[in-house]
């Protein structure tokens, strides 16, 4: 008999009931909430006179539209200048208070982007089912958890029943063997995967990332990779548990301790796909083939190695693709054949649930150290993913490196990833961004987003245009 994949194992262990119509009830261990997709769910509960099923399964934080300047943050909620944002943040506080849900409020020490604080606090653990009203919930799959994004009606459903109505997905293995070259990061790997799969290639699949490259990757890197599974269309991305996972989880605030830790570890060590597991689809890469990536278009699949040139729609046979490319080039203000390294950068954003962890900031700081932001770059925002990341970075004096380079050191939140607060692009501005979406208008009306990893973003900041970060690195060693 074929063995089980990690996804199969997690699905089976959480299956409450398989219904005749093909849907199933899946038990949810951890439910993360934030201010944007929860108010209507709480309202729905109230209207129906329902109570949350298990309060202690929920953890909330304010992240999406909290301001990131120290001045605006210092004044608390009352000082949030954007009316509607203030109401939303306040509503989350009120709802959590009314229902008794643990919340990291805007200025609490545990606050941060929901997908950064879950693993960091040990609130998301291996073997859990994790949901959140946010499509980047797959991030938590890096721990060997089954995590996916849900809509607001499902938020209400999980609050009320601790279950999700789900259908089993198909299994896909993305396998990257070999080794990554110097200066090639987790972000480059996942962008290369998306380039190959396309934004819909993973639709209907749970993706497991396997092979040497992921086995040797840090937890931060694995989170970056799983985070962007949704950009390949997959709701779920995951990596099997190994020693790197266990080392990461150990000692975290909500992680089990003592005898319970030992029992948990014994269980978690089974959380990987069996050797004889069968996947419905397998995609393979060699780590050596992956180069630092830069997206040029308005969809995450429109991405190329930094040495590439902007593609020519006239060369494309598929009419939908041709038109999509032409539209993207016109929106992005780019010419077919233009070298990616010729694209000038107006702003740089280093942050978001994809790349705002300590390792990301270290990588950016390494490039920024002793350099200055180029004259044509108007602003470089460094937004740590959580209060804990911020404190750690400050302890390592990374903040000083950024400030010395002419960059802005901000307070934790989603910030310019989705530009729901004041951090946004002006029309026509090009941004080197470590976030995950380059859709039209994502970072501000008319803004032009280029997705890159943190070191590549820092390199663009100091060069004033995209540049292969490896060139800066070899200068250093030369």
């Amino acid at each position: 008999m074929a063995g089980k994949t990690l996804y199969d194992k997690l699905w089976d262990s959480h299956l409450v009931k398989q219904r005749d119509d093909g849907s199933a009830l899946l038990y949810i261990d951890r439910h993360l909430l934030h201010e944007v997709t929860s108010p209507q769910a709480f309202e729905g509960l109230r209207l129906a006179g329902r109570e949350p099923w298990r309060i202690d399964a929920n953890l909330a934080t304010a992240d999406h539209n909290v301001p990131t300047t120290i001045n605006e943050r210092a004044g608390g909620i009352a000082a949030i200048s954007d009316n509607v944002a203030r109401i939303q943040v306040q509503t989350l506080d009120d709802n959590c208070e009314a229902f008794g849900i643990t919340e990291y409020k805007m200025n609490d020490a545990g606050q941060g982007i929901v997908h950064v604080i879950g693993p960091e606090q040990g609130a998301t653990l291996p073997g859990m089912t994790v949901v959140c009203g946010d499509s980047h919930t797959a991030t938590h799959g890096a721990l060997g958890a089954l995590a996916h994004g849900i809509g607001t009606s499902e938020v209400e459903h999980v609050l009320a029943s601790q279950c999700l109505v789900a259908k089993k997905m198909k299994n896909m293995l993305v396998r990257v063997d070999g080794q990554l070259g110097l200066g090639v990061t987790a972000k480059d790997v996942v962008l290369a995967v998306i380039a190959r799969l396309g934004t819909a290639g993973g639709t209907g699949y749970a993706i497991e990332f396997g092979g040497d490259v992921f086995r040797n990757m840090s937890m931060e890197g694995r989170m970056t990779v799983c985070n962007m599974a949704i950009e390949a269309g997959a709701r779920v991305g995951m990596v099997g548990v190994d020693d790197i996972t266990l080392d990461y989880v150990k000692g975290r605030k909500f992680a089990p301790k003592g005898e319970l830790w030992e029992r948990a570890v014994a269980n978690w060590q089974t959380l990987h796909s069996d050797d004889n597991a069968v996947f419905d689809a397998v995609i393979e890469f060699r780590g050596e083939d992956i180069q630092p990536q830069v997206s040029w278009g308005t969809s995450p699949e429109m991405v190329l190695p930094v040495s590439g040139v902007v593609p020519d729609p006239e060369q494309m046979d598929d009419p939908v693709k041709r038109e999509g490319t032409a539209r993207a080039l016109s929106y992005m203000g780019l010419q077919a054949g233009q070298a990616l390294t010729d694209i000038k950068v107006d702003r740089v954003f280093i942050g978001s649930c994809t790349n705002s962890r300590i390792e990301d900031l270290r990588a950016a700081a390494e490039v920024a150290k002793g350099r200055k932001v180029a004259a044509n770059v108007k602003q470089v925002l460094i937004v740590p993913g959580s209060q804990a990341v911020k404190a750690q970075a400050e302890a390592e004096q990374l903040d000083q490196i950024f400030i010395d380079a002419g960059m802005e050191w901000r307070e934790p939140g989603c910030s310019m990833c989705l530009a729901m607060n004041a951090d946004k692009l002006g029309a026509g501005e090009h941004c080197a961004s470590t976030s995950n979406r380059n859709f039209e208008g994502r970072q501000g009306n008319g803004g032009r987003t280029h997705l890159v990893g943190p070191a590549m973003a820092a390199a663009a900041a100091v060069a004033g245009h995209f540049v292969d970060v490896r060139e800066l690195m070899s200068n250093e060693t030369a």
Partner: protein
Amino acid sequence: MKSFKQHTGLVAPIDRANVDTDMIIPKQFLKSIKRSGFGPNLFDELRYLDEGFPDQDNSQRPLNMDFSLNQPRFKGASILLARENFGCGSSREHAPWALDDYGFRVVIASSFADIFYNNCFKNGLLPIVLSKDIVDSLFLAVDANEGYELLIDLEQQRIDLPDGTSLSFEIDAFYKQCLLEGLDEIGLTLQDKESISAFEQQWRKDSPWLFDVL
């Protein structure tokens, strides 16, 4: 939830692939704590020439007349015809809320993003997947014929075209039932309250480290 049995309506096209949820409803409108009122900002950046913000009088804004929904011939449309990977991007349910609030009851596309597809059913909106070829032919037909209407029969899983022919479509049995009866999914799940409690009790015993930590 609103039920959906049969619907006849005018078809409006949105002729591009990968229409994402940021495009369907831009983020500045997500700050509302309500479920309704998103219709005037549906496709905001495509629909208006200026930049929209919440609580604004949208009737005074300059329209982009190249955008299909602004053309008189598509006024009152309730069936949206789209291309592949419609609704990709964020999980925001504001996207189906905005489509619904605008007056759409059906979205036809050659494929949908998972979360968006799911979210439609929770809001009485019917997403229909048809093959690329059929979608292509519908785009041509809509373009060629002003007032192009379809009749959608969910029970029969059938679409009646103006030329007298019909198409069939596939839909998951559970979702179909929910839509036909306008079922409250939470109520339905809570009918299994005892199974959930029993599962939870056992799970707590087997995996105590996952409980009582917060």
